[in-house]
């Protein structure tokens, strides 16, 4: 099988990323340029800026002279790189071997994918559909070597073919400047009368090696596919991690929910295509002048849907107070698990909207972890110790094998002195225990009936003092 490569070149990746985030119409009308700060060079610009006559390689001064409404955004290498990563993750759903050409190119090894998708055209249609999700502009080309595909794509050939003659013809049409050779080498080649790439390819590699340096030989060998070109391929991450920078600072928690929605939608997409659930998501709000604020949102059952997560997040946000305006939000997930189908009874007449774990997550999100409890019993005679309340939905190892007879429904937080008249109905029951852990009690418990009709649980200490410990309800 002949190797075949596909290169995707994103000429306006920075601009497209910002556009998608903003997404308003006014942006399209306003001239917008991305300026490389160090080189003082405009690297990307939108249509409105192009209409004004702005082109790349212009300095800021020239561009600003052309329009006073020009909006200038500093170029960020990291932003493009991150976006590229995102695109690669998405493309990984349909293609296996992806290699990065940072900051604005992706190389795909496609010859091994063609038999899966039944031909190049079918594969390309599928890939185009994946790219459509991002709504960005791109150029593409296939080639018999990585460098050839890259060169075609960067010169906007936009061709998809596996015909080797056609590809060879396209290669011969290229200029030397289209290639990635350093300018110095191009100049040296010009001096000996080589202007076209075809001139250079007409020579044998041996002859070139005699006259020129090894870099040129390597490049040409890789371009024609004679030399092996080693590649490192992309592996998708197993956890979700996304950061968005807000276009303006937010100091109210109500307004935070909009950008959070955007993050949660991305999370849903990430989890859905992997058929995963996550039980915890962590927001990090980057605040101006203060430390970042972390917000953990948990769901005991595990969710992937943005709708469910947003409801839980909203409840948590109600209790959150911001110390300073937020300018960036980071979202990461905790551990993920494979989604299992929900088993619901088809025949039960009324079906609730939530499952047990969802209900607990919902309550915990609003009231706090400690407010939702599950009672447990351990083997102890002391009522204060026998009762254990642990946070709901934690697997507990406690269990009591032995139950005492006749205990009240409610226990007072601490025993209170008896202050009213009561008639003893049942008792005594002596509890004398705890000598091993320094909480020794010796009490005689009675059940008493007051004149108001209340049933109390009383005890008498060894000193003869009476206390109320519980109420039979």
């Amino acid at each position, binding site marked *: 099988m002949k190797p075949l490569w596909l290169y995707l070149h994103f000429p306006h990746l920075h601009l497209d990323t910002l556009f998608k985030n903003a997404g308003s119409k006014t942006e399209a009308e306003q001239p917008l340029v991305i300026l490389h700060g160090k080189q003082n060079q405009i690297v990307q610009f939108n249509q409105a800026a192009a209409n004004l006559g702005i082109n790349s390689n212009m300095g800021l001064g020239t561009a600003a002279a052309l329009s006073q409404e020009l909006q200038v955004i500093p170029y960020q290498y990291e932003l493009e790189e991150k976006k590229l990563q995102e695109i690669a993750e998405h493309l990984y759903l349909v293609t296996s071997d992806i290699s990065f050409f940072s900051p604005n190119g992706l190389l795909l090894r496609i010859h091994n994918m063609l038999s899966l998708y039944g031909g190049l055209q079918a594969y390309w249609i599928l890939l185009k559909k994946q790219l459509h999700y991002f709504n960005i502009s791109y150029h593409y080309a296939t080639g018999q070597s990585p460098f050839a595909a890259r060169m075609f794509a960067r010169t906007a050939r936009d061709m998809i073919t596996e015909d080797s003659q056609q590809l060879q013809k396209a290669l011969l049409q290229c200029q030397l400047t289209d290639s990635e050779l350093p300018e110095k080498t191009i100049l040296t080649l010009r001096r000996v009368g080589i202007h076209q790439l075809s001139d250079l390819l007409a020579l044998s590699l041996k002859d070139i090696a005699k006259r020129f340096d090894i870099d040129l030989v390597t490049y040409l060998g890789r371009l024609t596919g004679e030399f092996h070109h080693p590649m490192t391929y992309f592996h998708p991450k197993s956890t979700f991690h996304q950061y968005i920078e807000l276009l303006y600072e937010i100091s109210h928690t109500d307004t935070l929910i909009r950008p959070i929605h955007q993050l949660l939608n991305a999370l849903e997409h990430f989890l859905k295509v992997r058929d995963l659930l996550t039980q915890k998501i962590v927001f990090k709000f980057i605040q101006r002048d203060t430390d970042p604020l972390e917000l953990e949102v948990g769901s005991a059952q595990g969710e992937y849907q943005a709708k469910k997560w947003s409801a839980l997040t909203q409840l948590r946000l109600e209790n959150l107070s911001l110390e300073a305006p937020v300018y960036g939000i980071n979202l990461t997930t905790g551990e993920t698990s494979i989604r299992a189908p929900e088993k619901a009874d088809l025949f039960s007449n009324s079906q609730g909207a939530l499952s047990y774990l969802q209900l607990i997550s919902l309550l915990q999100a*609003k009231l706090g972890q400690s407010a939702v409890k*599950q*009672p447990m019993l351990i083997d102890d005679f002391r009522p204060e110790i026998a009762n254990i309340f642990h946070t709901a939905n934690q697997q507990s190892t406690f269990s009591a094998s032995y*139950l005492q007879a006749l205990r009240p429904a409610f226990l007072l937080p601490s025993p209170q002195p008896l202050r009213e008249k009561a008639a003893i109905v049942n008792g005594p029951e002596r509890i004398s225990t705890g000598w091993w852990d320094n909480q020794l009690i010796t009490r005689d418990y009675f*059940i008493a009936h007051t004149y*108001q009709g*209340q049933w109390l649980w009383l005890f008498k200490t060894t000193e003869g003092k009476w206390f109320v410990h519980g109420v*039979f309800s």
Partner: protein
Amino acid sequence: MNPLIEHLKNKRLIWQANQKKPCEMLNDNALTGYPELDQALQGGFPQQGVVDIDSPLGIGELRLLMPSLKARQNQTNKLLAFVATPMQINAEMLAEYGLTLEQVLVIEPSTADEALWSAEQCLKSGCCHSVLLWHKNLEIHQVKRLQLAAEKGNCIQFMFRQKHQISLSLPVPLAMKLNAKQQGVKVQITKRRGGWSADPFVVSMHTYWPELSRQHQPSNVISFPQSKVG
């Protein structure tokens, strides 16, 4: 009976106050466990909805519900939720009566509003069979909301209030007033959908809790025979 009325009745054009919805007729398994109460309620607690209980604390109001709570728990594997209990609930008592503690949820909200919110969420979630709420100031619209939530989740809510907090009649299918009595509790049904409030009656708890009910003991004071009065 007047043949005209009979005719109308056969055509289902007359509604009689003792008629119930078909779904409510089927609730033979919602028995309260106390024959006196079952009789007064004509079958037992409703399957769903809000039950308003006006009772002082500690007279046996929870014990009155225990048999039906246990029956409901045995039927389903749903949860029993305690919301805003006046004191710490004692798990020993629940276990002693045979409730499965894994199916018990204790919610301790910090404010009254949060208590209502939690109760509503539990009711409409569809994963609780009963919700017990202790609340002080309930308003009509709040009760209506709880009633709708209970119907949605097919859940019953018992609402405990104390006497001095009650000012107006709430839109609930069943309202009861409890008073202390030595043998058990004295129940007065103040409101019941499709029924009339009857005279108060005493529910004896002797069968379930012999230790917590005092039978009327015949007075052991024997009058001194008049003839021997010297």
